[in-house]
């Protein structure tokens, strides 16, 4: 049958390949072409230089990288805890999974607004702190004058919104660990912590690597959460790309920002592949 229908798989793939070439590969190339031009059409690095010398560039780069570095570890600790809970097979397992997976469908913008309702001056956090008597008047959390507190708010909102995807990948990884390994550890009297360190984490390495790469790439694109929570108080790279593309109407500098985000994503991916080799890669 395979011989008779040798062309069939290619025919089935053709529409997707054509679409992705048109809508992904072509714009990718165009992005670099745009970044290496100026609005008047001359070719060169002028747009890239304009991005580098822009007053907001350093802040945007710094804040984006800081957010990535702060958010990722928090998310992995949370995701790992959730995954272990799911794997412990408590009563009502499906409901625990639903609760932890909920944010998977929640947009960046909606998540940002959810946390605005908590951090805003007359919001839930101040109400609760007042209620239990920790503070006697509301604290201003969202102020451009305290950027680190703003960054903290964004980290919490991002940890809330985007931990689910890591959790799902880790649960799938956990379920592929043969139960004999853990039973053997039990027989030798390993404590829960020893089991996690010596059996679970090493076996989970490929899943951790995939989750780390995927999540880091997405973290470099952080956008609407920051706008909702920090307004103009924080600059991030994706927002600069947006600002240059819309308010300033200079697609070339916007493309330079987009290119920078892509480069950062690729560098971090390579870094994780080198620093966190999975077993097979290690032996090869």
């Amino acid at each position: 049958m395979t011989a008779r229908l040798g062309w069939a798989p290619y025919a089935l793939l053709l529409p997707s390949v054509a679409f992705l070439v048109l809508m992904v590969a072509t714009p990718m190339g165009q992005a670099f072409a745009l970044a290496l031009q100026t609005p008047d059409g001359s070719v060169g690095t002028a747009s890239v230089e304009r991005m580098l010398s822009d007053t907001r560039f350093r802040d945007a780069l710094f804040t984006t990288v800081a957010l990535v570095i702060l958010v990722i570890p928090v998310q992995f600790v949370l995701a790992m805890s959730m995954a272990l809970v799911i794997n412990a097979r408590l009563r009502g397992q499906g409901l625990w999974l639903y609760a932890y997976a909920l944010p998977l469908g929640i947009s960046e913008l909606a998540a940002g607004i959810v946390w605005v309702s908590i951090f805003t001056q007359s919001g839930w956090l101040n109400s609760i702190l007042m209620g239990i008597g920790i503070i006697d008047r509301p604290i201003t959390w969202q102020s451009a004058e305290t950027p680190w507190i703003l960054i903290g708010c964004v980290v919490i909102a991002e940890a809330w919104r985007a931990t689910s995807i890591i959790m799902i990948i880790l649960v799938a990884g956990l379920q592929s660990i043969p139960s004999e390994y853990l039973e053997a550890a039990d027989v030798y009297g390993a404590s829960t912590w020893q089991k996690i360190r010596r059996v679970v984490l090493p076996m989970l390495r490929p899943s951790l690597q995939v989750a780390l790469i995927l999540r880091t790439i997405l973290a470099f694109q952080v956008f609407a959460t920051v706008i909702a929570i920090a307004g103009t108080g924080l600059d991030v790279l994706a927002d600069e790309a947006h600002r240059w593309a819309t308010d300033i109407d200079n697609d070339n500098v916007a493309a330079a920002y987009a290119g920078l985000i892509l480069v950062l994503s690729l560098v971090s991916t390579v870094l994780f592949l080198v620093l966190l080799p999975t077993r097979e890669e290690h032996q090869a």
Partner: protein
Amino acid sequence: MTAGARDIPMPRRRTGRDRLVGRALTYLGATLLALFILLPIYLIAISAFTPRENAFDFPRSVIPGEVSTDTILFFLNASGVIDAFWRSVVVAIITLVLSVLIGAPAGYAVARYGFRGRETYRLAILATRAFPIVILAIPLAVTYRVWGIDDTIIGVALMHTALALPFTILITSSVFVSVPRELEEAAQTLGCSPLEAFVRVSLPLALPGLAAAAIFTWVLSWNDVFAAVILTLRNPTLPAKILTALTQSPIYYQFAAGFVMLVPSLVVIFFIRRYLLGLWGRVIK
């Protein structure tokens, strides 16, 4: 005990009480994690159902006083919101249809045929997933002006399809892998053509999984804000409309907006929750 076991340290026996305490701690941890996720959703819901004149009351009570649709109706009646809402719904539906039409055949091919270039294709699809939205949206805005589809529903839907397609392909291929091919072959030995065998045997079995994948595509589109805000101006989708209005809008407008955007996601994740692990678990292999 066997002879060789002498060198092995004796297991430290875990008593029944240890086990019980461990179990209780797991439930405690599980509950705290669930509260971290669910409490903010509850809080935005009360915020959205608090009447406008009470929006700035302080301190607020976590037990809702007056439940009213005043704030939500104010938001829905604000200029341009309903139009943007329907635009978002339509964009997401077009995205769903396009990505299933283009993606499902590819997913089927990857699942069912061993062919030259299969792994390359899979890797290329995974790599596509890694490209930032930012890098696609900006050049596409330029291209759309040339094509004459800038600031249109179809333009946004095409971009969303590009974002969703890698998912659709990987997810549908995992769905078709789970439908035994022997059934399809059996149908063919009984006289079905390959197409008939697919339509009458595999498709019905794959349908629930395919529906889950399609619904997930819908959510991806419904949630996108960056591409929409770059590609539209006068015809924004709901998130794009809300984002551009954010700085000039009162806080109760934001609460209602957040809640309205959130609700479909909650419903959708509930319906596809059984498939989440299968869908995502297999995507990474």
